[in-house]
Structure formats: structure tokens, C-alpha cells
């Protein structure tokens, strides 16, 4: 079973450390997505797994066997390159069959596999064409076909959809996901697009500066980001992160006098950050964050309100064409469970007992 295990994987290029000792387990049959900003080491990780690059230290195991020192062809995997890497002088059929010919697979077997791959990907009518006579999406499909005729159970993809337009990308996302399930492959897929990662993955590996920031299922990554970075990388728009200050009744957003979001923790009360998703914020009649709407960003199904809260930007995503006008003041509210707290120093999540912004007992009992 092609389970992939990375053990302290490190890659340095002279002074720069592209990968700083990564430990990762990708389960058999999983669709794992390596996600992260540009330069975080996603491609490096993928190339090390493929054997196209050599690790400075650390081990790679595929299917229980240590493959760290094996050449790429002996690792039992296939790969789809970002630029597809199709051979421009060969026809689609020859491109797909290149590897099988190299491996001296018998002709009858080759024909059967070609037919199957062409069938799965709808390439039947294009087999005689040269890559330059194909559209981007078709080239992408040829690259996929070349990866699946190998019938290896582990497939690597490096940003395969980045050259396609939005509509085709959505289509191909679905197709790739479907293909992976149908052929029961283990997939390691690189992207810097968090929406793509959330929609496709069983397991999202969020990377930053050559380290793994969080390794979790998409829902968990979205709902329980382990760090401020994870919170700010995932979601459209990403989570609001606001610095906190102590007030007599508890922690409030710096520069405001309320609402209180958490009880002041004993000991380290300095440098905390609160996170709240834009879609968790609702314009309510009752008490909440008192904000001024500074801008509106209409997106069709919903509208992003750009608000000002004590000098900080706060984004709220509300359904439909929002009623709020620019410059208007309103109260945004959310549940206590929508609040996440992070240490400003290292970005780690901090467990605090949150207070519901709409339900402020101390205020009700006291000042008002």
C-alpha cells in the first residue's frame, strides 16, 4: 500500500533552507494537498518524493520501503508537471505511451492501457495530434493520461491547474478528484490556492518557510486553525485577526471599550490576538462589535463589508446584496465559539474561555 512517510526531510541550497526537517505521514489512498505561499518549499518536497532532487538529510519511505536513495523510475510513482512537460515532437498517443515503451510493456498491453486512459479522459479524438495543437485543458488531460497509464498507485502533481482559466480549473478539479477515487490512487497535490486545497483534499498540509504549519483535514484546518498564519491563509476572505487589550472586565479589541471577548487570563495577558471569520459576523439588532462600514465589496452571492473597528480593519461577509450603506454604523455580532485566540509572539493558538459578544453579563449587570 503506497503510504508515504517523510522523516526529518531537509533540503538546503547553499545558505537557503528550502525544507527544514519535515515529518509527514500520508495515508494510503489519501488525497493530500501541500498548501502554502510561494517559496515555502512545496515543490521542493514534491521533487524530493519523486527523486528529482536529493535530500540534504532525512528519509523518504513509500509503501514501507526506504526509497531515499532510489532513482525516480524505481519509486513506483507518476507525476504531472506544472507545465505538463509533454514532448512537443510526439503525438498525444506517443506521449502517453512513452514510459510504457521505455519499460518494454508488450504492444497488446500498451494498446489496452492507452484505450482505457484515452477513454477515461476523453482523449479518443485527439490521439494523433501534437501537443501544440491542443488547448491548455487538453494538454493537461494528456499529462494526466500519461500519469495514469503507468498504473502506479502514487501520483504527484505540482500546481497542474495554474495555467487554466477559472471555469476549466473548477471542472478539472472535479475530474482529478474523481479520477483519484476511481483509480484508488494516493495523491500528493501541490497548490498555493487555498480554495482548491479545501475542495479537493482529504488532508491539507499547510507549509510556511520550509516547515509544516498545520497538517489536518480541510474542515479542521478551516474551523480550528492551529496558528494565526493558518487562520490568515485559509478562507475567502481570510480570518480577521485583531490585537487584544486588557480592560477592567476582560479582553477587548485594542482601541475599543467593548465588547469583552474573554476573561483576562492569569499571568500572560500581553500580546494576544483574536480571530473571527468574516462569515461568522452578522449585522444584528443587538449588541456586538460597533463598527463603521467603510467599503462594500459585492460578490454576487454575498457582500463583503469592509468595516472599521477602533482603527482596525474588520471584514464581514453577509449574504445577498447588503442593506448597509457606506459610512453607516452597525453592530456586528457572532457566537463565542466563533472566536479563536492566538499568541502574537509565536502565532500559536491559545485556549481562553471566550465570552459571547452579544451577551455581555458584566455590562448588563453593571454599567447599563
Amino acid at each position: 500500500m503506497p503510504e508515504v512517510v517523510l522523516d526529518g526531510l531537509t533540503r538546503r541550497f547553499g545558505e537557503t533552507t528550502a525544507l527544514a526537517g519535515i515529518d509527514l505521514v500520508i495515508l494510503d489512498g489519501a488525497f493530500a494537498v501541500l498548501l502554502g505561499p510561494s517559496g515555502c518549499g512545496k515543490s521542493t518536497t514534491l521533487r524530493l518524493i519523486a527523486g528529482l532532487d536529493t535530500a540534504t538529510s532525512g528519509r523518504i519511505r513509500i509503501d514501507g520501503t526506504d526509497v531515499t536513495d532510489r532513482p525516480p523510475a524505481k519509486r513506483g510513482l507518476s507525476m504531472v508537471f506544472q507545465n505538463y512537460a509533454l514532448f512537443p515532437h510526439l503525438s498525444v498517443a506517443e506521449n502517453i505511451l512513452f514510459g510504457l515503451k521505455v519499460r518494454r510493456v508488450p504492444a497488446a498491453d500498451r494498446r489496452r492501457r492507452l484505450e482505457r486512459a484515452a477513454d477515461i479522459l476523453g482523449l479518443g479524438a485527439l490521439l494523433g495530434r501534437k501537443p501544440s495543437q491542443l488547448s491548455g485543458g487538453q494538454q493537461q488531460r494528456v499529462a494526466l493520461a500519461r500519469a495514469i497509464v503507468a498504473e502506479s498507485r502514487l501520483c504527484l502533481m505540482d500546481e497542474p491547474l495554474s495555467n487554466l482559466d477559472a471555469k476549466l480549473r473548477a471542472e478539472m478539479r472535479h475530474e482529478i478528484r474523481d479520477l483519484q477515487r476511481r483509480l484508488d490512487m494516493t495523491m500528493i497535490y501541490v497548490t498555493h490556492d487555498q480554495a482548491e486545497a479545501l475542495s479537493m483534499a482529504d488532508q491539507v498540509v499547510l507549509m510556511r518557510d520550509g516547515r509544516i504549519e498545520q497538517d489536518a483535514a480541510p474542515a479542521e484546518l478551516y474551523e480550528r486553525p492551529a496558528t494565526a498564519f493558518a487562520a490568515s491563509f485559509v478562507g475567502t476572505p481570510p480570518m480577521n485577526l485583531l490585537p487584544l487589550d486588557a480592560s477592567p472586565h476582560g479582553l477587548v479589541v485594542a482601541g475599543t471599550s467593548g465588547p469583552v471577548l474573554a476573561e483576562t487570563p492569569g499571568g500572560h495577558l500581553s500580546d494576544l490576538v483574536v480571530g473571527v471569520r468574516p462569515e461568522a459576523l452578522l449585522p444584528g439588532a443587538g449588541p456586538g462589535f460597533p463598527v463603521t462600514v467603510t467599503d462594500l465589496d459585492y460578490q454576487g452571492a454575498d457582500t463583503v463589508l469592509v468595516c472599521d473597528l477602533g482603527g482596525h480593519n474588520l471584514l464581514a461577509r453577509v449574504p445577498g446584496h447588503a442593506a448597509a450603506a457606506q459610512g453607516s454604523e452597525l453592530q456586528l455580532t457572532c457566537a463565542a465559539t466563533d472566536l479563536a485566540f492566538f499568541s502574537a509572539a509565536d502565532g500559536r493558538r491559545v485556549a481562553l474561555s471566550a465570552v459571547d459578544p452579544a451577551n455581555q453579563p458584566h455590562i448588563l449587570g453593571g454599567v447599563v
Partner: protein
Amino acid sequence: MARPVGDPCMDRRLLTTIYAWLLLLPAMVLLVAFTHYPTVATFWASFFSTARGRRPASFLGLDHYRRMITDDPVFLQVVWNNFLYALVTIPLSIGIALVMALWVNERLAGRGFLRMAYFTPTVLPMVAAANIWLFFYTPGFGLLNQIIALFGGPDVNFLGSPETALWSVMAVSVWKEAGFFMIFYLAALQSIPPSLKEAAKLEGASDFHYVRRIVLPLLMPTTLFVLVNAVIGAFRVVDHIVAMTGGGPSNASSLLLFYIYETGFKFWDTSYAAALTVVLLAVLITVSVLQVTVLDKRIHYR
């Protein structure tokens, strides 16, 4: 007398046409004066005898061409020499260029130095290169003879004996051309995305298989270009013949263009030289047309 009122649209088109011709004029003048007119004049002159003293040129028809085939052993030898020269130097220099390019395209220590070293002969003027090789070939104390002597071999007069003269000249030409062609191959190699090699490697292809099945086909357009240049070059060389052997001994190393030069400017038989030039032109045109029509179709995959 009313002037007919011109259609403004027509006027404009006329003006555009005049502009176009004016813009083409400088290049046209140069081409006509130095390429087209001489070509036609040469062709025309080849049907006449050379005017000498009081005797004016007289029309001879195809006599010059008949003379080449039936009555000019030197011409036949020179054509054979040139044919041999092309047949040996072209594949050899292209082959060496390709191997050198593949070699210096690899990531290896000192590859910048290697590239420069291979390219140096190209930068030298042919006459300078010829002089360097003149020293290598010198009987007695030349570099090659010193090496041969080291192994106890006999002294060889490379440029002075009919058996070795042409081969020695060929060696210089290969040495000089290979570096030049290498640059074209190198440029083409660098335009092949590295991911093709990685894809081939992933599929289990060996380096040899990759070069044979992927690199060589992708280099074909470059090869065609280099080939056209090499063929034209092989029929156009005189510099090192002049500098090294003067076509000798007894025409053993003479080539077509050198023979034309001798006929025209040493023996002053200019109209026979014109006929020889027409033959040279015919060869070059045939070769280029063949290469561009027949080979091109089988090479361009885009």
C-alpha cells in the same frame, strides 16, 4: 482645361505605394548592385570568350561548360576534392559540435571555461587559425611532427604531399567550424525545458534514450539550419587554402572557389571563371532548395 478631380481614395493608395517603394529602395539598390546584377552578368558572360588585347569577346554558347567536362581535368579534380571536403568536414564538424554541446550543457565544474575554449577557434579569423595550424604542420619541428617523433614515427610533410594536403586542410576546417555550430546547438539545448528530462527520467528512460528519442528530434530544426550553413560554407572556403597550401601540391588541396579565383585572377580567363561560378551557384541553389523543401517537411513538428 479642368484637371480631372482625382478620387481621394485612389490618391492615398498611390501615395502608400510610393512610400513603400521608397522605403524599399536603399536595400533594393544594394541587392541589385551587388547581388542580382553580378549574378546575371556572370551568367551572361559565361557564354562568351574572354576578351584579350585586340580580340573582343565572341559568343561561344555552351563551349565553356563542355570544356569543363571533357577538357579540364583540374576542374574534375577540384569538384571531387570539394565533394570529399564537404562529405568529410560537414558530418564531422556537426557531430563534434553536437557532442560538445551536450557535454558543456551538463552541470559540471568549469563548464563556462569549456564553452569558451570550444568557441575560441570560431572567434579567430580563418587566416590566423591557418597560421597556427601552419606551425602545427611544419615538417621537422612542427608540433605534430614533434609528437610523432616522440613515438618514433617518420617525419610527415602534411601540407606538402598530395596524399595528406587535403586532409590536413579539412582538419583545420573541422576544428574551426565545430565550435561555431556548437553555439547553435547549445542555444537550442537551453531552450528545451528541464522538465522534459525529468519527465523522461520518471518514466524510466536512460540518458541515452532521452538524448536519442527526445533531444535529437527536438534539435532537428537546428541541425537543418547548421547543415545549410555548413554546405554553403564547404563550397565557399578559400581563406585557409590560400594561406596554407595555395591549392597545391598539384591541385591536391584545391577547391572549387579557389580554382575560380585562380582562373579569374591569376590566369585572367574571366569568362571561363564566370562559367565555373555559375556551376558553383547551381550547386548551392540546388542544395538549399533540397534542404528547405524536402528536409523541412520532415523536421518541423510545430
